[in-house]
């Protein structure tokens, strides 16, 4: 990477981890289930974790009707991420479910596996609701730097460390949601819609 200015003059909006899973039942069909996990080390609203789950992306509904929900230990941080970032992440902000997400507190969270191994898993629970995000068939880590015109928000430079997953699943209370990851391109890189993102930083200006 050509490097000229070691200290970026931009404003750090948040930094942390942001893996996700986007599933379809057939390549030309709608998204059947979507999930993003955030482990934020710094944001204007503090640190914390948040799991964003669209169990039924096509419904403007949340608990108790369906598990379109945000599980978090820092609701102001989660609302900041939903408003300023998730809502601008293409499909995550476009699906009907985004309009009516209920926030519930984290009662348990656990990380297992190895991103350089065969399997990595984030488990987050809120009382009786337990969600497992599982990434398998992991690829080599790749450092990426995405310019604003190519980043998820279209407004920020984004630094991250991508580990591609070619097999992934979302489990809700032990039940696997329908769908499989799909091929996608990011900043010229052929990858999939199941990804681990570590050391991710969003910079504006």
């Amino acid at each position, binding site marked *: *990477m050509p490097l000229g200015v070691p200290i970026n003059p931009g404003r750090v909006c948040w930094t942390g981890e942001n893996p996700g899973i986007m599933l379809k039942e057939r390549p030309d069909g709608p998204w059947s289930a979507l999930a993003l996990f955030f482990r934020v080390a710094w944001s204007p609203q503090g640190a914390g974790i948040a799991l964003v789950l669209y169990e039924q992306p096509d419904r403007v509904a949340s608990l108790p009707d369906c598990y379109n929900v945000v599980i978090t230990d820092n609701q102001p941080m989660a609302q900041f991420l939903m408003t300023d970032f998730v809502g601008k992440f293409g499909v995550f902000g476009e699906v009907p479910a985004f309009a009516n997400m209920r926030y519930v507190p984290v009662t348990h969270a656990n990380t297992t596996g190895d991103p350089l191994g065969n399997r990595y898993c984030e488990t987050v629970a809120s009382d009786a609701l337990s969600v497992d995000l599982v990434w398998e068939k992991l690829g*080599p880590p790749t*450092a990426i*730097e995405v310019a604003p015109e*190519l980043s998820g928000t279209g407004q920020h430079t984004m630094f991250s460390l991508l580990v591609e997953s070619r097999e992934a699943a979302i489990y809700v209370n032990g039940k696997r949601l329908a769908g499989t990851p799909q091929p996608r391109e990011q900043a010229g890189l052929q990858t999939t819609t199941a990804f681990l993102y*570590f050391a991710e930083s969003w910079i504006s200006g």
Partner: protein
Amino acid sequence: MTQRVPINPGLVEWSGDNPGIYLRERADGPFVTLALFFQVVLSPHGRGTAMLVLGAPDQAGTWPGTPNLMITDNQALARYLIDGFVVNMPTFRAKPALQALAVLALTDASTERQGHRHCERVMSGDLVAEMAWERLGVPFAVEVNPGQSATGTHQMYSIFVEAKTATIALGGTRLPGTVTDRQLFGRTISTAFLAFSETWVKPVPT
């Protein structure tokens, strides 16, 4: 920061958080206490936590006789970080304390964040090691090439948060020294810093 290559072809060595505190007793004196904390999410040796404390960096002794030690839940990772990275960092280079360092098993760890204070605490049995950063500044992103990085051979990305004051304690005793200023790429910042989302990349040979 323009004309970047979006996909770095280099080999990712490790990634995680890597805050540090370097203390002196006077502004023009040597460092008398050094500490680094590692929260590694990806490495050839897996994930893990490690805290390096050198309360006597210029002495070859180690814990319990001398306040030099590392506490970790992943011994292989800790050795990889010391041998491959720490020994090459200018502040730590050729420090006698690194020659025969006791590496103790981590039995508990916790992070406390409150306003402009951040604290990392690790335990090995009854022994507690603690690093605390206070009067935190505004975060800024750093991206350096091998000629600028601490090891001299890696590209490194990180988010730094400067701390105006900081302390290191081992076994309930506060270790000597205070935060002083240093130059970082033309900017004057303190010798205590949080470093989040840090990634070390070995460039592809040209």
